[in-house]
């Protein structure tokens, strides 16, 4: 049994496997299939200061080896999370991280400030990369200046581990990652979904109500892996890799590219218990290659 412990800022994970925001609900949806306490952590659904109904149906289209979504941050707001959901999930026995989104800096700051008060939430993931909301979201994540402003503002009110989730829909993701690090982020997670589109040739209509949406799933893995490698080589804070991880081997590849931890997203829809297989698979890989710790393979890509 290899040592699977990793640290992200002040956050200690028993293993490097987390779940991605928006793919794991509030964890409860998966409790029939797995012991949630085995996870390194899970990241709850994107939470905004105020309730959001999200985009109209249809919000999802299956694509080759992947899917597009345009959910648009449907959630009941931070107060609902604090009063209704948090009491139910806080003693799950793993790190619960809240993904925070907003349409103005003030929204982010207020929501982060409220979540800062919750004892059992050791970190937030700042979503500056949602492609499915018109105002804000990705707007902050596509320029170094925008990223810097929102991260600085949240850093001022949030004392625990601050992870910034980056958009791949940019010319140079390393610039945004650098800006997040310089503004005080403890970690960056990447990638959020890639902006994509699907059309039904027969009806001549788009398959999503919003026309465009975010692509995820196995199809995006090579892009995600490349971006994680580039970012890990540029910045000093830990990188959390995600994007198309379907099994333990994909997860190991992200760690070899420089990720300290990984998130499993769309794969949860295909196998709701996939995360446990990924944890066990990483461990077996480390044993087989005689590594005593998962840290030994971080960035250990042979060039």
């Amino acid at each position, binding site marked *: 049994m290899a040592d699977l412990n990793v640290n992200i800022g002040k956050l200690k994970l028993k293993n490097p496997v987390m779940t991605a925001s*928006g*793919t*794991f*609900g509030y964890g409860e*949806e*998966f409790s*029939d*299939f797995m012991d949630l306490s085995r996870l390194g952590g899970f990241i709850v*659904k994107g939470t905004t200061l105020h309730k959001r*109904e*999200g985009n*109209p*149906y*249809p*919000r*999802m*289209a*299956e*694509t*080759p*080896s*992947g*899917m597009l*979504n345009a*959910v648009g941050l*449907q959630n009941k707001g931070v107060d609902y999370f604090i009063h209704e959901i948090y009491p139910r999930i806080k003693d799950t026995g793993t790190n619960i991280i809240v993904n925070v989104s907003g349409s103005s800096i003030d929204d982010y700051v207020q929501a982060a400030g409220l979540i800062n008060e919750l004892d059992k939430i050791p970190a937030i993931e700042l979503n500056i990369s949602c492609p499915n909301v018109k105002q804000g979201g990705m707007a902050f994540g596509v320029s170094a200046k925008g990223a810097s402003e929102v991260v600085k503002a949240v850093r001022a009110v949030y004392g625990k581990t601050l992870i910034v989730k980056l958009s791949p829909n940019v010319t140079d993701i390393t610039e945004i990652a650098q800006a997040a690090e310089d503004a005080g982020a403890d970690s960056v997670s990447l990638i959020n979904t890639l902006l994509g589109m699907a059309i039904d040739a027969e009806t001549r209509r788009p398959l999503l109500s919003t026309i465009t949406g975010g692509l995820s*799933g*196995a199809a995006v893995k090579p892009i995600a892996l490349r971006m994680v490698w580039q970012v890990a080589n540029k910045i000093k804070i830990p990188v959390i890799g995600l994007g198309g991880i379907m099994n333990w081997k994909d997860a190991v590849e992200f760690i070899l590219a420089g990720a300290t931890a990984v998130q499993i997203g*769309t794969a*949860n*829809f*295909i*196998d*709701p*218990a996939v995360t446990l297989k990924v944890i066990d698979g990483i461990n077996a890989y480390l044993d087989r290659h005689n590594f005593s710790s998962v840290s030994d393979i971080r960035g250990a890509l042979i060039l």
Partner: protein
Amino acid sequence: MKKFILDLTVTSNALIHENYALLKLTHHDPLPDMLPGQFAEIRIDGSPATFLRRPISIHNVDREANEVWFLVQVAGEGTRHLAQKKAGETLNAVLPLGNTFTMPAPLSGQVLLAGGGVGVAPLLYLGRHLKENGFVPTFLLGARSRKDLLQLAEFERYGKVHATTEDGSFGEKGYVTQHSLLKENSFSRIYACGPKPMMASVARYAQQHDTECEVSLENKMACGIGACLCCVENTTEGHLCVCKDGPVFNIKKLLWQI
């Protein structure tokens, strides 16, 4: 209800129509409890075009044979894959998912189960459940033509079956809501599943006759367990997940123009 991820074994798979397969699956342990209206998310392996699981309604549960039945409409690559599975092969299913139909009050009169196309699938198990609970379900099944009416003999085991066909080749000619049964009878509760225009038409009838009515929706979904929020329906309570809050909804909760 506890949900399971199970590797189920195909006991039989018959093409009962050019576009429909009747797929029967078993498990080495007793199958979990399943209620009418619930569905399974079945994994399709081996093709990049079928990345996600396919949600398929539970058509029947045969406890003696320890079998769960699915009526699969071949609509694309995923369902074609399901229709081609052979006895002895394995399919991975997550089940049971979703809510169930509301049972009628005892002694509350006739209940109508109206189905069209592949929408008849959940009504067989619902009819069976109703019969086992002392009700006498009336089925009203609609199809384009005689050959498109599926599983009639099975439905007849649990209740009286009426049919409409668009070409008049069986039962009354027309759509289900044009059937004389609806003019001559009153029902205490109606359940409907089928194409949306058909369900809307049944809902209109129910509304006009002040009858409780539930419909089963089949919005496009990904996770099947209320995690991704892709399959939402607009309701009086905002966007609800068809996979978790449904698939069965009372028509009063829906914002349909009916």
